[in-house]
């Protein structure tokens, strides 16, 4: 019942908020400083991206992005208020000003970028949509899924991609869509569908954490879409947009220049490399251009590590997901992660 009326409530809240608040610009940073926390919209729990543990501590790639921003802006990566949102609520919540930033593995698409009143900031994960199937069906390619039933979550780009891809291949399939992510994968593991589809990163998490026996399931080789995941902010506040863009970017740059959570203090004291110096806060003061201080990127890296460390801890070898670096490697190591120059 609760989750059913929540989108409606969010819409009503959005109407009221829009009606009550005058159009504001450039005020998010002030509001964040005054409040003392960054309000960060996340998922209800997607392993590796944003998920609470049994004590209610959030972790994940998206969570770390928010922590890095909080560290840069407020000086403490713990000063984040996480607001769990389902996929239908997420946009209304950001539009209504309920959150300062939405880091909820959201795909950057033209429609979302151009018509919802948002700016996507920096791609933090290059994902693609795939399929999880039970091994006993002996399916080795998504093209063999003719007349199969596929479970997925409503209101995602995944739902549309499935329709597009199978239509292009001229393969009839049936999709069953559920309002909640949980209901959709539970129905799949109960055997309602022959395949489950979502971003491959989430598939790995499901297989390893939710499947009755992970070895009974296999992820098919096809990637049917590009899913660049990025945080978003509201339009009309360029200052906050710049911060939300450059903090994650600084983490990618930090990896390229070999700055880690462990060696940053040492580098701050001794590094002679100007590129490193700018990132650790011992070189030019770039922070003031963002409305922050000189140590903005030092604090962000100190709080969550560089992008590579974030990846390894949340979705890479040190996590349950064990995802390969793949497209998310640095540009000079064969991946797509290309940090814009911090100078």
């Amino acid at each position, binding site marked *: *019942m609760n989750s059913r009326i929540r989108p409606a409530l969010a819409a009503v809240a959005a109407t009221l908020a829009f009606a009550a608040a005058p159009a504001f610009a450039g005020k998010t940073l002030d509001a964040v400083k005054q409040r003392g926390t960054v309000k960060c919209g996340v998922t209800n729990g997607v392993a590796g991206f944003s998920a609470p543990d049994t004590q209610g501590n959030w972790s994940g790639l998206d969570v770390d992005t928010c922590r890095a921003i909080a560290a840069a802006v407020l000086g403490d990566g713990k000063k984040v208020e996480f607001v769990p949102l389902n996929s239908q609520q997420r946009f209304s919540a950001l539009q209504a000003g309920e959150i300062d930033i939405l880091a909820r593995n959201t795909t950057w698409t033209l*429609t979302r970028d*151009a018509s919802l009143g948002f700016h996507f900031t920096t791609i933090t994960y290059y994902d693609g949509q795939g399929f999880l199937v039970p091994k006993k069906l002996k399916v080795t390619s998504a093209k063999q899924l003719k007349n199969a*039933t596929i479970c997925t979550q409503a209101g995602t780009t995944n739902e549309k991609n499935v329709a597009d891809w199978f239509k292009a291949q001229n393969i009839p399939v*049936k999709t069953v869509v*559920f*309002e909640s992510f949980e209901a959709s994968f539970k129905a799949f593991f109960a055997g*309602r569908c022959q395949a489950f589809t979502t971003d491959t990163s989430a598939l790995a998490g499901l297989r390893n954490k939710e499947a009755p026996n992970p070895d009974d399931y296999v992820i098919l080789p096809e990637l049917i879409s590009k899913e660049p995941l990025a945080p978003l902010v509201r339009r009309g506040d360029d200052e906050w947009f710049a911060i939300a863009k450059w903090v994650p970017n600084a983490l990618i740059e930090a990896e390229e220049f070999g700055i880690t959570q462990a060696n940053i203090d040492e580098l701050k004291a001794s590094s002679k490399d100007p590129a490193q110096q700018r990132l650790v806060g011992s070189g030019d003061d770039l922070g003031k251009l963002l409305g922050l201080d000189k140590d903005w990127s030092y604090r962000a890296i100190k709080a969550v590590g560089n992008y590579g460390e974030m990846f390894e801890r949340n979705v890479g070898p040190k996590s349950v997901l064990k995802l390969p670096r793949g497209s998310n490697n640095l540009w000079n190591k064969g991946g797509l992660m290309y940090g814009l120059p911090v100078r």
Partner: protein
Amino acid sequence: MSRRRAAWLAWALQALLIAAIASGVVWLVQHALEVLRSRGVHSGFDFLLQPAGFEISEGWLDFDAGQPFWRAFLAGVINTVRAAVPAALIAVVLGTLIGIGRLAPHVLVRGLCRAYVETIRNVPLLVQLLMLYFALTQLLPDSTEPLELLPDVWLSKGGLALPWPVREEGAWWPSHFEWPERGSFNVSGGAALSPEYLAVVTALALYTASFVAEIVRAGIASVAQGQKLAAQALGLTGWQQLRIVVLPQALRVIVPALTNQLLSLTKNSSLAVAVGYPELVSIANTSLNSTGRAFECIAVIMAVYLGLSLLISWAMNRYNARVALRGWR
């Protein structure tokens, strides 16, 4: 002050109040739209003409991803009706039987009917729906190994597949049956009732029946004892007493309350979104997400439920006018 003037004043005050509220609402909406526009958020109902881009898994209306949003909404409304109508019929029949059962002379029948009512109506519908759905999907055989209930009637996690008459292109009458066939993944062909649909109809019917039972019991109890005794004196059998004398009088009490239950049932069908049945709310949710038009999609949901409810009220009020005592409406 004369009574006439007082009445006039009361009218004027009410008109003023309504005007004030209406202009307040108009101002709120206008301001919201203005702010939305200033932030680059698109709004309006123009998206209804664009292609929807998603598929709908089942329903009476053929739909594919290339068709516009309005048709997707229409398919959703039809799916809502497709679930609500059978559920309402089952609920009324079952509820009436249980209501009569609650007044039965047999202790066992009475007890069972009472147990049914008290259990079902006191557990939230959403919980029952999820429970029923997951029970269905857990317990039924895999769709690769369906169970043949009757010849050519297959039951599995993929749902219930049965032979169905189909008509040729352009023909008025069905000419032959289409038989379900076992495929590599699913049974295909014929008519298929998905587990989502079965769960929704069953849960709605069982839940509403428990309320209908109480309404029917109250209706029967409201008929004066003398009526029944008089019928008995005329030599009518138990069933005849009920059918000819008691029930027609009880209907006067039953029908208005039953109208409420039918309205609730229709609105409760929106819970189907939780188990993946593509009714109106489910489709509006998906549309809301791919277009970002939250107000518009929710406005459509509200308008449709309002329309359906008014239609049901109208039909039930007509029926009520027929069974009500003359001059007692």
